[in-house]
C-alpha cells in the first residue's frame, strides 16, 4: 500500500481553542482558502481538559453574532472566594481586597472547555474547514531548503514488535503552504520545532504544572452554580507550589482540581495523591458530600508566561497557544490567550498568503494578548524562584499596588526536570489509603477517564536509553515516574526476582508530564495509533 498525499492551503495540528480559532478566522478572512485540521483525540474535545473559568471576550471577537447563542456560556461567575488552606482542617479566607487582581472573575463564565471546543468545531465546519479527529500528526515534513511544508499522519495496524498487521493502513502526507502547530502544552512536534528552529533562543526555559481535574455530580444544598473557589497552601507544602480550584457549574456539576507546579523538589512527592487528599479539606469536602465522581483526568499546563514564550513564526508555519506558551500564569487562564493567538496567526498567514509584507512580531506586540502577558511577566517566575509565601506576597504587591508596572523582570532559569533533590528517606512521603468516598486509587480513576489504546501496537512512550529508569533514575530519585504519572503508566515490578521497568502505555492520559519531568530527559512522548487516549466528556 502506497502513502497518499493531499494539498491544502493551511493545515492545523490540534483541535483545541488555539487551532480551532485559527481555522475559523482563516475561513472568515478568505472563504476560498482550503483549511484542514487534525486532532489526535477520537473526537474534538475528547482530549481537552481545563478548569475552566473562561474570559469570553475573544470568543465574541471571533463570532460577534453567534457567541451569545453558545450553549456552553451558561454559568456566569457569581461568587469568587480565595482560601488559604493553612492545614488539614484549617483555612483563612483571603478578603477580596487582598486577592491578586488577576484572580477576580467578574464577567467570566464557568464552562467545560471540551464542550466549547465542540461548539467552535461546528462553527468551523459550517465555515468549510475539513476536520479530521482520530488522526495525530506524527511528524512534520520539510523541503530541501528546510522549510516546513506539511505533516504526516501515523501508520495504523502495526503490532507491538513493529510488524504490519492484517489491518495495516499507511499514514498520509498532508502538504500545505502554511502549517500551524496548536498541540497544547508540550506538543511533541512543537518540542522538535522549537529545538530545530531555535524558537526559544534568549528565552527562559519553559515552566509547567500538572493539573488534575474531576467532575462530580452533586445533590446537596451547597451547590450554587456560578460559585468559584480557589485555594492555596495545603496539601502542598514547602518545595511545592500550586493551587486548588472548585467550580460549580450547570446540571449539578462541580469541577474540582489541583494544579501542582512541576518544579517540585521532593522525588517521593505524588501529585495524584496530593490531589486525592485535597478533596478531604472541609472547604472542599462540603461541596462534594453525597456526590458522585463522574470523570477524572490530568493535563500539563504551560505556565512560564511571556519570559518563556517562544518565537511563534518560522519558515513555513506557526506555533500557537500553549504549544508556544501563551497562557497567562497570573490567572492560570490560557483558553482566551489560545483563542487570541489563533486569531493572530490566522491574520498573519492570511497576509503572507496574499504576499503582503508583514512582520509577526509587530502584529503580536500590537495585540492585547501581548499587553496582557507582559503585565503578568513576573508572576510565575516569582513563585518559582522565591517559593510560595514570598512569591505570593511579591505578586500581590506587584499586581495590586504597582499594577504590574515595575520596571524589571524576574526570571527563573532552572528547567523543571532539574529541580528534584536526591532521594532521601528522611523526606519520604506517605499517603493514606483511599477512602473510596472522596479519595480514590488510580485504577478506578482511570476508568472514569475513558482512556483506551489498541493494545497490540508499539509502546508510544519511548525511552532514549532503556536502562536509565532502573539505574540513574532509581538510584538517585527512586524513579519518580512511578509517582508523577497520573495514570500509573510507569511501574517497577518484580519479575522473577529482578526489578523490571514496566510501561502500561494503554493507560496513558496524554498529559505529557513524563516528557517534562523525567530528571534524565529520557522519556519521549509520541502519538499512539489514531484515536487512542482519554475520552473526556465535559472536561
Amino acid at each position: 500500500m502506497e502513502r497518499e498525499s493531499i494539498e491544502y492551503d493551511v493545515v492545523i495540528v490540534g483541535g483545541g481553542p488555539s487551532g480551532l480559532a485559527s481555522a475559523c478566522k482563516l475561513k472568515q478572512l478568505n472563504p476560498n482558502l482550503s483549511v484542514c485540521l487534525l486532532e489526535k483525540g477520537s473526537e474534538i474535545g475528547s482530549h481537552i481538559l481545563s478548569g475552566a473559568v473562561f474570559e469570553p471576550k475573544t470568543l465574541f471577537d471571533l463570532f460577534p453574532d453567534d457567541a451569545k447563542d453558545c450553549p456552553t456560556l451558561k454559568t456566569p461567575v457569581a461568587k469568587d472566594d480565595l482560601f488559604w488552606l493553612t492545614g488539614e482542617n484549617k483555612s483563612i479566607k483571603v478578603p477580596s481586597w487582598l486577592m491578586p487582581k488577576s484572580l477576580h472573575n467578574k464577567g467570566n463564565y464557568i464552562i467545560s472547555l471540551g464542550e466549547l471546543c465542540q461548539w467552535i468545531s461546528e462553527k468551523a465546519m459550517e465555515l468549510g474547514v475539513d476536520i479530521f479527529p482520530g488522526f495525530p500528526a506524527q511528524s512534520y515534513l520539510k523541503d530541501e531548503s528546510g522549510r516546513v511544508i506539511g505533516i504526516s499522519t501515523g501508520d495504523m495496524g502495526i503490532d507491538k514488535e513493529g510488524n504490519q498487521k492484517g489491518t495495516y493502513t499507511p499514514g498520509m502526507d498532508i502538504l500545505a503552504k502554511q502549517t500551524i502547530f496548536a498541540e497544547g502544552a508540550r506538543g511533541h512536534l512543537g518540542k522538535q520545532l522549537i529545538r530545530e528552529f531555535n524558537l526559544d533562543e534568549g528565552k527562559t526555559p519553559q515552566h509547567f504544572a500538572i493539573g488534575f481535574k474531576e467532575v462530580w455530580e452533586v445533590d446537596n444544598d451547597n451547590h450554587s452554580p456560578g460559585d468559584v473557589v480557589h485555594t492555596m497552601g495545603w496539601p502542598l507544602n514547602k518545595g511545592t507550589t500550586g493551587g486548588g480550584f472548585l467550580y460549580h457549574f450547570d446540571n449539578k456539576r462541580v469541577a474540582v482540581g489541583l494544579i501542582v507546579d512541576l518544579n517540585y523538589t521532593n522525588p517521593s512527592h505524588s501529585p495524584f495523591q496530593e490531589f486525592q487528599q485535597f478533596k478531604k479539606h472541609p472547604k472542599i469536602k462540603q461541596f462534594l458530600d453525597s456526590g458522585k465522581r463522574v470523570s477524572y483526568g490530568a493535563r500539563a499546563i504551560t505556565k512560564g508566561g511571556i519570559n518563556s514564550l517562544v518565537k511563534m513564526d518560522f519558515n513555513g508555519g506557526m506555533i500557537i497557544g500553549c504549544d508556544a506558551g501563551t497562557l497567562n500564569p497570573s490567572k492560570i487562564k490560557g483558553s482566551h490567550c489560545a483563542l487570541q493567538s489563533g486569531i493572530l496567526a490566522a491574520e498573519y498567514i492570511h497576509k503572507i498568503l496574499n504576499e503582503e509584507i508583514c512582520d509577526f512580531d509587530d502584529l503580536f506586540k500590537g495585540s492585547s494578548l501581548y499587553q496582557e502577558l507582559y503585565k503578568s511577566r513576573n508572576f510565575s517566575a516569582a513563585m518559582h524562584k522565591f517559593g510560595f509565601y514570598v512569591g505570593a506576597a511579591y505578586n500581590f504587591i506587584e499586581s495590586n499596588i504597582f499594577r504590574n508596572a515595575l520596571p524589571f523582570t524576574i526570571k527563573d532559569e532552572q528547567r523543571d526536570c532539574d529541580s528534584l533533590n536526591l532521594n532521601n528517606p528522611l523526606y519520604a512521603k506517605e499517603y493514606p489509603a483511599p477512602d473510596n468516598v472522596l479519595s480514590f486509587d488510580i485504577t478506578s480513576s482511570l476508568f472514569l477517564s475513558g482512556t483506551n489504546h489498541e493494545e497490540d501496537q508499539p509502546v508510544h512512550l519511548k525511552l532514549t536509553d532503556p536502562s536509565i529508569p532502573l539505574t540513574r533514575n532509581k538510584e538517585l530519585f527512586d524513579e519518580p515516574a512511578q509517582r508523577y504519572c497520573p495514570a500509573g503508566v510507569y511501574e517497577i515490578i518484580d519479575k522473577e526476582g529482578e526489578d523490571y521497568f514496566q510501561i502500561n502505555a494503554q493507560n496513558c492520559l496524554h498529559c505529557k508530564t513524563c516528557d517534562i519531568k523525567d530528571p534524565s530527559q529520557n522519556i519521549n512522548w509520541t502519538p499512539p495509533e489514531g484515536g487512542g487516549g482519554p475520552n473526556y466528556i465535559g472536561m
Partner: protein
Amino acid sequence: MKIIIPVKRVLDPYTQARVNNQTQQVDLTNAKMAMNPFCEIAVEEALTLKESGSASETIAVSIGTDKTVDTLRTALAMGVDRAIFVKTDSELDLQPLHVAKILANIIKREEAQLVIMGKQAVDNDNNQTGQMLSGLIDYSLGTFISKFDLSADASSVEVCREIDSGIETRKLNLPAIVTVDLRLNEPRYASLPNIMKARSKPLETIELSSLEIDTAPRIKVVSVEESGTKDRASKQISSAEELFNELNQMGVL
C-alpha cells in the same frame, strides 16, 4: 448481487454508560458514539465479497437522527459504495421490530439478495432484529456466523454458526440474512484518504414518516440502572491454571 449492511450508531463501548436520573435513560448528551462493533464486522465481510468480485454493490443503511450520518460516513470511508439514511426527528425509542420493518422496506426496494448485519448492537444487546427481519421478508437466516463461504454460482452460502454446543455448519439458499459474530474477521480502519473520498460518495436520505411504519413501542422499559463501579478492580489472567487458582482462592469453586 447487491448486499445491504444495516449499521447502528451506539454509545462507544469503551466509554462508561451513565443513567440520567430524570429521564430514566442512558445519558447520551455529549457522549462519544461509534459504529456498533458487530456492524463493523458486517461491513468488512461485505467489502471482502465486493473485492473478490462476488458482489456488485454494497449499501449501508442506518436509522436515526442527523448525527447518524457520521456512522454512515464511516461505513463509506471503510469502502461501502453508497448509503441510505432513514431519518427520524427525535431520539425515538426504536425497538427491534420497528427496525426490522424499516429494513424490510429498504431491502425490498433495493431488491438486495444478501443482508449482512451484526448479531446484536452493544447498547441494548437485543439480538432480535436479524431474526425478525428474516421472518418479515422470508429470507433464509444464519445467526452468529464466524465463517462465510459463498458458492461459486452465488446461489447459496455455507456458514459456520457459533452456538452454545460448539460450531454448527449450515448451507443457506439465497436470498439470505446473516448476523455476524466476533470471530468472522478483523474490520479494516477507515483511512484518512478514504474518509476524504467518502465525502463525495452518494448518501440518500429517506424520512421515516414517508415509510408509514407503525413505531408505537411494543416493549415497556420498567427501570434503567447503572452497573456498580465499586468492585471493578479487574485482573488479567494469562492461563487457565491461574484462573483456577484465583477462583479457588475466592472460594467460589
